[in-house]
């Protein structure tokens, strides 16, 4: 499941009004989500959630579902630590 918070960030960064985001959605299925805006979205997520990704973690991600799970994982380790 993609959270409203993540969806909101994506919409705002890509200047879109609405969007159907599923776990399996990949960047090339979303209008405007190209290699340049990709990094803006990542930076916006880091700021919004106050987390920090490693380069390799982002390179491994294949769809939005995996991005959501990575965020969730980061959040639990942050709160646990």
């Amino acid at each position, binding site marked *: 499941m993609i959270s409203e918070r993540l969806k909101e960030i994506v919409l705002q960064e890509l200047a879109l009004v609405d969007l159907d985001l599923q776990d399996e959605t990949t960047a090339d299925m979303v209008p405007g989500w190209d290699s340049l805006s990709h990094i803006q979205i*990542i*930076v916006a997520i880091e700021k919004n959630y106050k987390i920090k990704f490693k380069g390799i973690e*982002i390179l*491994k991600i294949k769809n939005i579902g995996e991005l959501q799970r990575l965020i969730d994982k980061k959040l639990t380790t942050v709160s646990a630590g």
Partner: protein
Amino acid sequence: MFQYFDLNKIKLLLVYDKTDPLVFTSSMFLFAFFALLFLYRVLYKSKPARIYLLISFSIFFYYKASGIYFLFLFVISFVNYFMGKWIGGAQSRKVRLALFLLSLLLNIGLLIYFKYTNFFIQIINVVRGSQIAPLDIFLPLGISFIIFKALSYVIEIYLENIEPVNSIRDFTFFIFYFPTLQMGPIERASNFLPQVEADNPISKEMIGTALFLIMSGLLKKVVIADYIGINFVDRVFDSPLRFTGVENLMAAYAYALQLYTDFSGYTDMALGVSLFLGYRLTDNFNAPFKALSIADFWRRWHITLSSWCLDYIFKPLQMKFRGMNIFGNALALFITFLVIGIWHGANWTFIVFGAIHGTYLATSIFTKKLRQNFYKKTGLTNSRIVKFLQWFFTFNLVVFTTIFFRASNMTMAFYVIKQIFTFFHAEVFMQFVLGYKLIFGLIVLGYLVHFIPENWKVKTQELIVKTPLIGKAVMLAFVIWLVIQFRFADLQPFLYFQF
């Protein structure tokens, strides 16, 4: 006596000869390939036999061009096969990373040694005023393509996008596969290896497409690229100061077309040859001169290289520099294109080629908002005039960079540009057209074919696929006849124009 003579001649055809590699357009390749196809048919039922046959032929293909250096293929295969296996099997993150870095070091080390050692010696000599003699290093065929292909395999395993392959035979086949050895495409393991495993039969459609690609490749390479190269482009680029700006400009446009028809012609033939054997390779070109921006151009030009660099160089750098916002993107792009430039060869001209493209792309990032706002305010977004201007500027900006790509050194490149801007002599243009009718006609024809709508090409291809065998044979014979006419045609006379 006769027998002795003949045997020796055949032997000569089969041994390494630096000046006579098995290029797709040679008659020797045609014979060798027919022999291969015959054996391939005979052995087709046994998958191992047929794969070993292709591996053996690939070794022969490489040996013909690079002699004993065919061993290089074995080194690359074994190193990357085992590295991939160990990276995939490593339990700890640190071991994974260490193994990954080691394989990067080995692959890139080999590439740097073979391709760039003498370039570095040159730079050291200039900087320190020393006189170190260049080393006698042989450049194995297609080394940059082969190493990038092998590297993508270990990188994809490290990124967990693919699993290591279990069969060393299949992996060796992937690395050795002769249609890709000389000039790519830089195939990804994730596209090729599943085809080897699935073992799909060769369909009629594949054979028809293969013929279409081979014919189109031959025409592009021999009739257009080689002909305008030898008869016009080489002459101007060898001594630009002897020609007016008009001729230098025409040579720049002609060279951009030559570069495209040469490389995409080669790629068509590689794809076609491979389809005959049942494997679909990745296309490298998608009408690049139709691009409406430089970024668009790189999505259409040498696609397997640009997507390689996008995935494995640009994206990691972009992540690294993300704190710098828009500057980070620009810097990552610039570095990526410097690497693309250097990848093409150990010469400043290629570095400058990459640097200019990097600068174009960085500039386009910084001016993107400005341009969008301008189009919005003037109501010109997506208008025809804007599209035309975008195409016009992109095309000419690309052609400008190909001057550096072709020039033998930076001085020559500057001479070409100097002639265009300070010694133009527009009145020579009509003399040029009339004096070089065939050359000019070929340049116009080459670009026209490039700009015809994509669905025309698809329809032509479908038509050839549907043509009965006899019709296909006639077409192929005609193309081969035409190719021979152009290959053995006399050189065009040298012309001097009055101004």
